[in-house]
């Protein structure tokens, strides 16, 4: 099928995955208020996989599945021209897979948490679906207005999800903090869009690229616009000078939301970052390349240093997520197709391993916000062998040990950096990765090498059936991509083919 966007009906087909998710979100909302389970009540002896709002969770999963089917169907569709408002290219579809996987895994690990904390299941799952739709708009938008609206749909849903557990003081505080700082950063982003429009007379990413390449755009305004857009995106991906909110928000938010946020929001922001900077601002590579270089370097170094001294596991994972943003910024700085494919691969593997690690943290914390110190994991591995092994694999993958997906992801990013001859940045990446072994392995060391503080302290750790599905799926992906990454990286390379060709410029002027 061929899509011609001069016919408005064709927007329907191009946006089918997003439309399904939004419509399904409304269905879940209505099911949530009309069902008998007005409160996700924790009745005695209830099974969290079936009662207490779990049916709404399964319903939301069906929506994710339908959207995935639509996303697969879009591979058979081509578009006429490459300047339409909605992109139908491999890059968007690959990013959509990442978001859908993040949403499915997050929903699977939420069941017991929603049940135990008596959250309002309908709204919870609906907001997750809407946030996912927002991410997909960001990945698919070829117009800065669509990207901005996608960013807002995603952010507002995530603000609400962060503050969702209102009985917990920390959750409300984190929600307010995230909201205020996020609104501030959104202002920067919007101002950047306005300045881009002032410089080039268009909000369409492809048209902006052409105008800048042909020299029709004003240099000063473009530079200002790039600065503001970097601040806006930098906040969302939590690069270091704009990372202040991350540890507090990750610690305060309900744990499944933290998992969703650290994987999905970051992936969406990076994907939009990549499209805007490689297609629209390709010709001004010389302007933004030094800024991103320093951002990447500072992010990698300081995030890893700060992670070394964390004793709370959620905070440690928050700093680890900032550090991973630094590694991904290296790929962005390299700005060539190898690095872009490496970034997509990295985001995929990061989503899976990070949500997996958070799933076990949720289980170990008794589906609540307790027992989150590193010391609480003493003897965890021997008491719960299956969970211990799985968590160790996720930690090794996050650290980037050979044989895991995380290692291959870093190799592909380094390959992109080498193509762009970013030698210093590559050295920093390797050194900070080695430094990060300390804090990942410290947790593993506590799990396997220390004795339990009190006998039987890990017997209460529950991992219900849906969470086990998520864990087994994640660990399979991490190991499979670690040993046989060929098919996935080829797929990622096909997906970024021709992404930057429209702007008239060549990808990676720094080569």
């Amino acid at each position: 099928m061929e899509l011609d966007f001069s016919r408005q009906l064709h927007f329907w087909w191009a946006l089918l995955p997003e439309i399904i998710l939004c419509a399904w979100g409304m269905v879940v909302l209505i099911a949530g208020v009309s069902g008998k389970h007005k409160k996700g009540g924790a009745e005695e002896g209830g099974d969290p996989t079936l009662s207490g709002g779990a049916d709404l969770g399964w319903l939301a999963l069906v929506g994710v599945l339908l959207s995935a089917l639509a996303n697969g169907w879009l591979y058979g569709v081509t578009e006429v021209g490459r300047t339409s408002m909605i992109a139908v290219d491999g890059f968007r579809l690959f990013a959509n897979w990442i978001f859908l996987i993040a949403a499915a895994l997050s929903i699977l690990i939420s069941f017991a948490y929603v049940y135990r904390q008596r959250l309002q299941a309908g709204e919870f799952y609906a907001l997750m679906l809407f946030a996912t739709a927002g991410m997909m708009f960001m990945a698919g938008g070829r117009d800065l207005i669509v990207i901005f609206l996608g960013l807002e749909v995603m952010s507002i849903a995530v603000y609400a999800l962060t503050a969702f557990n209102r009985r917990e003081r920390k959750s409300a505080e984190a929600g307010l903090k995230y909201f205020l700082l996020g609104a501030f950063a959104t202002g920067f982003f919007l101002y950047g869009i306005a300045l881009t429009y002032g410089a080039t007379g268009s909000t369409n990413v492809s048209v902006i690229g052409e105008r800048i390449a042909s020299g029709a755009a004003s240099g000063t305004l473009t530079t200002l616009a790039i600065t503001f857009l970097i601040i806006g995106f930098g906040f969302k991906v939590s690069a270091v000078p704009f990372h202040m909110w991350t540890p507090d928000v990750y610690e305060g938010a309900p744990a499944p939301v933290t998992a969703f946020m650290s994987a999905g929001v970051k992936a969406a922001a990076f994907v939009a970052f990549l499209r805007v900077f490689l297609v629209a601002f390709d010709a001004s590579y010389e302007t933004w390349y030094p800024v991103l270089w320093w951002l990447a370097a500072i992010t990698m170094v300081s995030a890893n240093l700060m992670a070394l001294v964390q004793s709370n596991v959620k905070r440690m994972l928050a700093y680890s997520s900032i550090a991973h943003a630094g590694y991904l910024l290296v790929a962005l700085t390299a700005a060539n197709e190898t690095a872009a494919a490496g970034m997509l691969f990295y985001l995929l593997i990061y989503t899976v391993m990070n949500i997996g690690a958070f799933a076990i943290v949720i289980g170990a914390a008794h589906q609540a916000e307790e027992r989150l110190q590193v010391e609480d994991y003493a003897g965890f591995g021997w008491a719960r062998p299956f969970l211990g092994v799985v968590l160790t694999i996720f930690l090794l993958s996050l650290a980037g040990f050979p044989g895991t997906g995380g290692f291959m992801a870093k190799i592909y990013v380094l390959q992109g950096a080498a193509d762009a001859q970013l030698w210093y940045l590559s050295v920093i990446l390797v050194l900070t990765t080695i430094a990060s072994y300390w804090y990942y392995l410290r947790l593993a060391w506590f799990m396997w090498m220390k004795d339990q503080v009190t006998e039987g302290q890990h017997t209460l750790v529950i991992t219900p059936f849906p969470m086990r599905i998520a864990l087994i799926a994640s660990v399979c992906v991490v190991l499979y991509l670690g040993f046989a990454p060929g098919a996935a990286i080829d797929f990622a390379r096909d997906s970024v083919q021709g992404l930057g060709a429209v702007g008239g410029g060549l990808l990676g002027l720094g080569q």
Partner: protein
Amino acid sequence: MVTILFYLFAGLAIGGAIGVVMAKSPVGSLLFMVTTLAAMAATFVLLEAHFLAAIQIIVYAGAIMVLFLFVIMLLNLGHDYQRDLKGGAFAVLSFAIVGAISGLLAQRLGAAGSSDITAGGVAIDAAIAEHGAIGAIAQPLYTTYVVPFEITGILLLVAIVGALVLAKKEV
């Protein structure tokens, strides 16, 4: 004449914006904001965008500001509060940054003459002549930009759901 009026309203808008952040009581901030929005509406009139000016007054200066005022009055937030901005250094820094940015913009626009702006103006005039003042906005809103328009609907729905979840009394 138009130039004098423009500088008058531009000064009012900027003064009002500074007033919003400097005022001691929330109600004062709000009234300053109304000033800014009204001055911007006047600037729209000077650009002959009468429909936008009317919308600006009705929606922003009218409806939204009144809503804000209601909330502040009903929650009894109208009293003065201690200023919690840390020292003058931040204020000086932020004004310096804003000043530098506006200086750069003014320099660039001054150097380039107003050719870009006239080009845009011609296009707008043509659109108004063809569709009328309201049609010139409605036409692209419901054709070219129909996708962002629909996404805005989703955005509002998400905002309503989020607000309800967080503000509901019974949890």
